[in-house]
């Protein structure tokens, strides 16, 4: 079955006839970090995929607001949290 990955967009071929969670495990993808899309709908980890299926594993994690090495400075002004 075809698996579409993103960032960068690419395709891999894996065996079908098993559950989505097993495909994720083989690809070493943490389920919490992706949406599993088949066609125009989402698929849960327990569902079966066949050799003819195409699924997209769309990463969900964005980031970059913390600087890599420098300790993060607090915002330049004090804030009091509401309640």
């Amino acid at each position, binding site marked *: 079955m075809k698996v579409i990955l*993103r*960032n960068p967009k690419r395709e891999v071929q894996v065996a079908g006839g098993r559950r989505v969670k097993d495909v994720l495990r083989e690809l070493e993808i*943490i*389920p*919490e*970090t*992706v*949406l599993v*899309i088949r066609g125009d*709908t*989402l*698929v*849960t*980890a*327990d*569902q079966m995929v066949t050799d003819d299926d195409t699924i997209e594993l*769309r990463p*969900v*994690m*964005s*980031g*970059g*607001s*913390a*600087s*890599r*090495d*420098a*300790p*993060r*400075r*607090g*915002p*330049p*002004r*004090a*804030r*009091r*949290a*509401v*309640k």
Partner: protein
Amino acid sequence: MKCRKCGRGAVIELRRHNAAFCEPDFVEFFRNQVREAIRKHRMFTPEEAVLVAVSGGKDSLALWEVLIEEGYRTTGLYLDLGIFDYSIESKARCEKFATAHGVPLIVTAVAEEIGAPVPIIKTVTRRPPCSGCGLSKRYLMNRVALERGFPVVATGHNLDDEAATLFGSVMHWQTDALPRQSPALAATHPKLVRRVKPLYRLSERETAAYAFLRRIDYIVEECPFAAGATSIAHKEILSRMEEASPGAKHNFLFGFLDRARAAFERVEAVALQECTRCGQVTTGTVCAFCKLADQVKRAT
């Protein structure tokens, strides 16, 4: 897997809630979590105009969509960072969204305000680009809100964002930053607006699922400068913990907010001044944004 609410086929499993939902019940769950966040932290009332900071990504556009559906009076704010095609495409998504929903969008360019786009700021400061970017965004969000009379700015920060920020602050024991981490920050000065995060109860995956199911056309590609960022590394660590122990992220964040944050608060407040150059709030004499603008001007 069956929907916990109605028994039909589930499209998403939420192990941390020991639940699975069909599409309509997941949409309702998602909106309920936003309603709860707004209520619990008194983020804004239906009468207040809300400025929604949007990037074109799944979180901010999902947030904007929910607030529109819930009947709030919203205006979007897109900050053009000048990051090559990424900024061109993300701006286009925001404009398309605003047109489709019949809501106003303000666009402000960082290059016009500080003298250079983020890629140039990066070379001028020789620091990670996220540093100048984040500083500029926070500054401009506040200033635009003030200038246009918005009492509150809402951002699309989700549970993963907040948990990762908390994780980083704890790993480095940033005791100044810890008490200031909250889903709602009050306006502690006449020139500061309220800053709220209505998606803080929802994970990044849940937010992505909502955006997908609602057919929101968001930019999937990441900012080209995001690769290798510490926040992403922290999110990965937390995601592994969540896989092993569902609920770990929300226990970490909510436990901090409910039981630990107050312990880091100081008795004396930091003195807030107005920048001698632009009038925005600073703890020094000249604010970090003006200092950065000077640095850019000297170098370009």
